[in-house]
């Protein structure tokens, strides 16, 4: 029995690369959403009133402690019954972004907590307005500290995109499965998908390490 067929590999490659594009698109948009929402959660954790802190905390804990797959199913099959229908890819981006925002929120929190108290005191001493304290003093220092950690979540999200197949998004892995289901040969497509994941995730993690070194003083 042949173990590897190069011409078949060439035949399925275009479909896999199309899937890779979808995978990258979902990761990129999901990351943007996760970064933005995570910051919102992190700031809400520090709100002066518990009427904001507690509900936000409850939502974040709920999302973080339920599986991504269940959330995707909910967004895809249940949400439309309330009249709110998004395309499969949009649903996937919302699912990934929302899920990972609950993790990035903790990353931001750590970053903000890591800003030395002296910085807060200096801002107060200079009687900087609250808004300016955040945008010019605290967040620039906090975010600089957490860029590598955020990067790791991007890589984790990248590796979670095959879950979107459950809501009919034709990502890289689903394309491979379909190619396999049609030809009954899974070895080539699945191997290529694995290699593509490594080819993208490993350099990205190297980049994150370099960033960590540069930003870490």
């Amino acid at each position, binding site marked *: *029995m042949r*173990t590897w067929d190069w011409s078949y590999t060439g035949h399925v490659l275009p479909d896999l690369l199309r899937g890779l594009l979808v995978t990258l698109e979902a990761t990129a948009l999901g990351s943007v959403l996760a970064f933005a929402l995570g910051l919102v959660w992190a700031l809400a954790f520090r709100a002066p009133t518990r009427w904001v802190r507690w509900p936000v905390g409850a939502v974040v804990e709920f999302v973080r402690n339920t599986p991504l797959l269940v959330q995707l199913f909910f967004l*895809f*099959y*249940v949400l*439309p*019954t309330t009249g709110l*229908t998004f395309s*499969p890819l949009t649903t996937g981006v919302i699912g990934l972004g929302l899920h990972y925002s609950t993790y990035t929120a903790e990353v931001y929190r750590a970053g903000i907590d890591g800003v030395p108290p002296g910085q807060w005191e200096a801002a107060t001493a200079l009687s900087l307005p609250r808004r300016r304290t955040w945008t010019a003093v605290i967040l620039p220092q906090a975010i600089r500290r957490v860029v590598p950690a955020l990067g790791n979540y991007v890589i984790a999200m990248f590796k979670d995109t095959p879950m979107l*197949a*459950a809501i*009919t998004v*034709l990502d890289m892995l*689903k394309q491979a*499965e*379909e190619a*396999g*289901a*049609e030809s*009954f*040969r*899974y070895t080539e497509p699945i191997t290529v998908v694995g290699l593509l994941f490594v080819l993208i995730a490993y350099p990205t993690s190297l980049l994150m390490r370099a960033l960590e070194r540069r930003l*870490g003083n």
Partner: protein
Amino acid sequence: MSYQQHTHRATTPGLTRRGLLGALGLTALATGCSRVSTADATDGGNLLERLREQGTVRLGIAGEIPFAYIDRDGRLTGEAPTVAKAIFTRLGVPHTQPVPIDFGSLIPGLRSNQFDVIAAGMFINPTRCAQVLFSDPDYQVQEALIVPRGNPKKLRTYADIARTGASMGVATGGIEIQYAKSYGVPSGKIAIYNDQLSGLEGIEAGRMDCFAGTSLTLRNLLATGSHPKVEMTEPFIPVVGGKKQYGAGGYGFRPGETRLRDAFNSQLHRLRDSGELLRLIRPFGFTETESTTLTARELCG
């Protein structure tokens, strides 16, 4: 913290990398070996003798009602396992063991020796015949669509879907995706669901205009509960390249296991001719209209 990470990185990278490569090599080697040992049998194979010795045959199933599935009590049931069990008992193999797997993995699973027979009501077609040795079919069905109630887009066949530009859903690995493409439905309009039930959910959530499947599967799917928002269309036989596509299903064996297949076939014919076959599969929604005298040879083209 940062200091510790640096020292760690400085002392061990060569070792770790070499270890990793070694592990990868071993995995590749192991995979290579298992593939060689499951190579196609020659001179008809001796699987039947081995199964008689073990007393148990492993059936690959795909969790599809009514063909083969695990019921509420956790028992293997469905049309195909019931018939397979009857035949294997007559062949001297009294026990069956289900191996549930998704439909698209049935053929690779059979070929990589995860089970002995595909008993999932799999359709016999030329592409599959190139990979699997089929028994003669024991049933024949037509295709149908699930559409929103009232069928707003007036969809009846794949041709209607292609003409109106409607969106459709299929279950992963099923034959429907190939039918649809051959009728010119663009792949961008075909959503692939993990199973029939999620397809039904997709229709009820308004995610597509229709969901395609066999008349039998869809009828049983709708019988799972109350589904006021959807309905099933009149069954039809798809035509591809001027040839009618009969949805006739049988049992799949590893290539080369012709002796087991032939023994299975002769018992199957005996069951069919005595009327026992229909009695066995009637509880799963099969009737005289689903019975067939087609052969695997005709279907493999």
